[in-house]
């Protein structure tokens, strides 16, 4: 990176002290790291400014220009209409428990799986639901969890229940769909964190007489927690934005009327783009708040090397 950065001294060689303005612009830029190669980042950056930053700012601007009323009318309407503001609570009530469950389940599974021989087979199987996506999982679960589906049949044959449990078109349908796509996601992220922890740390602890639970609590957990916080955030934003399964597997007019549904209906059923943008902004703010809280708490955790050795 530094091999070509000799431009400044060479420019000053000619005559002794030169005012900085005398150095050509091109070389001054180069000294700051801007040259032909840096320009290669421009098309991608420009594209994102045009199609990500601009729409976002435009949406923010639009949300303050409601169809009727003053500057804050859209937000006022959102927070005064229970049909709208209740979507925040409903979405959190789905997203937080399922994300916690996914993250908590991912840790023991990742720890158990990290050194088995056929790890690749299991990770391949678990990447399938993520690849298939939420729409297919919704259709699959409609078949599988339905009153005549295999899941209820097995439970009834085993004598655990006497009549089919209602698992679709309600809260649990959406919950289970978030579990089936969210758990593999959390697991794969956790696995990559866990694989980075030096085994010698645990071996030393074991040599010093720490049992399994103590090794986990005192050695592994402090090392995993920062990664787990990131996993939680990434899983949470996905669960919070749940859309297709909330419509197809849930009861989109009742307990699973999540915030994405409210935003979608405002945009494409009422054609009120200003209101839809306002809801999207509220959605972004809630996500940011939760992620900020988790990352803030993460600041108190140990964040150092996961490698063993002297130090």
């Amino acid at each position: 990176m530094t091999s070509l950065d000799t431009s400044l001294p060479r420019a000053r060689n000619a005559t002794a002290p030169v005012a900085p303005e005398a150095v050509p612009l091109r070389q001054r830029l180069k000294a700051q790291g801007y040259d032909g190669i840096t320009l290669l980042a421009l098309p991608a950056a420009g594209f994102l400014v045009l199609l990500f930053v601009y729409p976002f700012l435009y949406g923010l601007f639009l949300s303050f220009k409601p169809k009727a009323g003053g500057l804050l009318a859209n937000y006022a309407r959102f927070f005064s209409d229970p049909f709208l503001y209740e979507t925040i609570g409903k979405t959190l009530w789905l997203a937080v428990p399922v994300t916690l469950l996914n993250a908590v389940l991912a840790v023991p599974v990742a720890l158990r799986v990290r050194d088995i021989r056929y790890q690749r087979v299991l990770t391949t199987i678990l990447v399938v639901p993520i690849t298939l996506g939420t729409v297919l999982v919704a259709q699959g679960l409609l078949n599988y969890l339905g009153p005549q589906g295999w899941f209820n049949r097995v439970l009834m044959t085993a004598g655990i229940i006497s009549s089919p449990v209602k698992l679709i078109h309600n809260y649990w349908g959406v919950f289970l769909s978030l579990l089936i796509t969210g758990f593999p996601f959390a697991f794969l992220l956790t696995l990559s964190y866990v694989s980075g922890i030096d085994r010698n740390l645990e071996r030393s602890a074991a040599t010093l007489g720490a049992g399994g639970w103590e090794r986990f609590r005192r050695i592994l957990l402090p090392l995993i927690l920062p990664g787990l916080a990131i996993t939680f955030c990434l899983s949470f934003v996905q669960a919070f934005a749940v859309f297709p399964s909330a419509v197809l597997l849930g009861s989109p007019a009742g307990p699973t009327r999540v915030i994405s549904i409210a935003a979608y209906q405002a945009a494409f059923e009422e054609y009120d783009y200003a209101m839809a943008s306002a809801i999207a902004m509220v959605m972004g703010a809630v996500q940011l708040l939760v992620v900020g809280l988790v990352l803030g708490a993460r600041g108190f955790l140990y964040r150092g090397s996961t490698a063993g050795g002297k130090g």
Partner: protein
Amino acid sequence: MIKDTSLTARLWSAAVWAFIVFFVVNLFAMIGSVVTSSFATRWLGTWLPAGWTTRWYGSAWAEFQLGEVLTVTFQAVFLVVLFSGLLGVPAAYALARRDFKGKRLLMLLFLLPLLIPPITFGIPLATVLYQTGFAGSLAGVVLANLVPTVPFVVLVMVPFIEQIDPKIEAAAQVFGANTSRLFLHVLLPLLLPGILAALLLVLVRTIAIFELTFLVAGPTSQTLVVALYYAVFAAGVRAVQSIDAMAVIYMVTTLIWLVIALRFVNPTQLVGRPREQAAH
């Protein structure tokens, strides 16, 4: 692995395995029930269908115009892969090789579209695309899908390029290679494995990405996953077996590419590793 033979350790291990097996069995049973249903003549209130048939595939193909839908899907995916490579790889090269003012800000710009879920930025994006007239067309679908895929390519490629020794490029220049020869004979062969992996990941993700396409697609620019959503949404209009046949066609399309991709990449790469991973 530390050998722990105490009873609690064994019980715990067994419990973890039981959960893994339970999860995988349910996953396969869910997929299996879709496949079974797609071949069923009639399936009501029994373990297995009354009879087997393949006619639902023909009727799904005709009812949902899957010929056109698949053409659109492949066109969109091909264009998304092409352009995310063309935009993402040079940007990744610049970020890997140069340190400049504002680099952190640029990294943040590339990180945000991956952290913010598509439906949040998709609604303002769709608004802009509708106003500029791109929405409802193939171009709109491609543009919307590029928003998360370009940063994805950048973030996958930066660590890959960083581990290639810049001295190789310097040596080629010393021996008199000009920019185009340096690119063709030195950089491209070195970067190709990384580019291939990144673009395969983009391909697999783009076939399955639903929200962005759903928000901007018109009737003639639906991809397979959006068509599947509308079919499930309007369940009751068509036979459930027909929808399941379409779901199987969708699964096969996605999984073929997943199998190909997994020959070159690790499954964990599909979920996109957080940047911090590289810092350790």
